[in-house]
């Protein structure tokens, strides 16, 4: 049975299209919002819009790539075409997973369950610096050396839910 020669070409265009869309949604926000790079006034909002939609766009792209692979699999003429097709589709699927990974929290792990010690149990140098807050009679301190790594701590102090940032 002879299949039209355009079939592999059409499939390749589709797969490359899905790959390009997924790659763009994953890479563009990371490229724009990175340290030591100034962001222009329009770039940052654009990158954040892409970041917000990317989990779903990348997932749809992966589902579409798998569906298209299933549709065209038997029509691909040679074994190496099928291998390439599988690898390409696999890449789109991997990008769908990466689109849900927060690389910043891989670099700077969050404090998922902040724990606190009484001040007289703490051993710090007297000149260690802290960010301190007092609300409703409750005093809380966040050492800057730790905050410089974690950057964010979600907490409740004196009944007020707050986020300490550094």
């Amino acid at each position: 049975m002879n299949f039209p020669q355009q079939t592999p070409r059409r499939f390749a265009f589709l797969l490359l299209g899905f790959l390009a869309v997924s790659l763009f949604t994953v890479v563009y926000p990371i490229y724009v919002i990175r340290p030591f790079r100034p962001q222009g006034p329009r770039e940052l909002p654009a990158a954040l819009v892409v970041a917000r939609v990317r989990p779903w766009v990348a997932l749809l792209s992966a589902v579409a790539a798998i569906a298209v692979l299933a549709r065209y699999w038997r029509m691909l003429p040679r074994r190496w075409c099928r291998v390439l097709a599988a690898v390409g589709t696999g890449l789109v699927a991997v990008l769908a997973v990466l689109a849900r990974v927060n690389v910043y929290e891989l670099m700077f792990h969050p404090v998922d369950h902040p724990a606190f010690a009484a001040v007289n149990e703490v051993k710090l140098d007297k000149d260690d610096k802290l960010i301190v807050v007092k609300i409703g009679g409750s005093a809380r301190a966040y050492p800057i050396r730790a905050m410089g790594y974690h950057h964010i701590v979600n907490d409740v102090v004196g009944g007020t839910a707050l986020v300490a940032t550094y």
Partner: protein
Amino acid sequence: MWTRDVAGLRLTFHLAGINNQNFIMRDEETGTYWQQISGLAISGPLQGRQLTLVHSDELTFATWKAEEPQGKMLKDVPKYASEYEAKDWDVRMKRVPTVIQFAEHGMKARDLMLGIRAFGASRAFPYEQVMKEKLVKDHVGAEPVLLVVGPDNESVRAFRDRIAGVEGTPDFYRLDGKKPDALLMDAATGSEWNFQGCAVAGKVKGVCLERIPMLKDYWFDWRNYNPKTTIYGKKL
């Protein structure tokens, strides 16, 4: 430091990007992105919303321990503690290049400033100069302010220079060790004041000055978010 309650929701924030010297946060409840330095939602369902600032200070451990013997401190997360910053990280950061400079009015990008945005104005106080003077009497906008260096010669607080019930702008002086529990005295009432801005003796004992939020920041970053800032000690 910001409140987490906004638009009827309690938000949980995650690090979502580094933007020059600041970072971007994302709340897990709505997926909105927020600017760390301003507390403003810049993209997402809550775009345009503003978090409420929570007043905080930067103090040495010794000063905080003396002021808050019942206080609680965040514990290290053991598996990451070895990666925490060294104590001299701010000295090492001075050598890191910046992508924006604002080399104007004789300022260098990584000059450390104490920034106050209040009373409709922004003003930056060079950190080294405040440390040298120990008591700065100045204005932000039309309001008189005090910047006070603590007894540890490292911690700094800012206050509005007004005493409730007293007219005009009281003049403050440092006592510098003359009294064990007092750091300042005001000429208007003769009262003695501690580093928390509360009168511990004198006519207005028990009265506290209004604290003003202050941000320790590098010049380039302060200037980037406060384009109309003035600088203490410089005529612009």
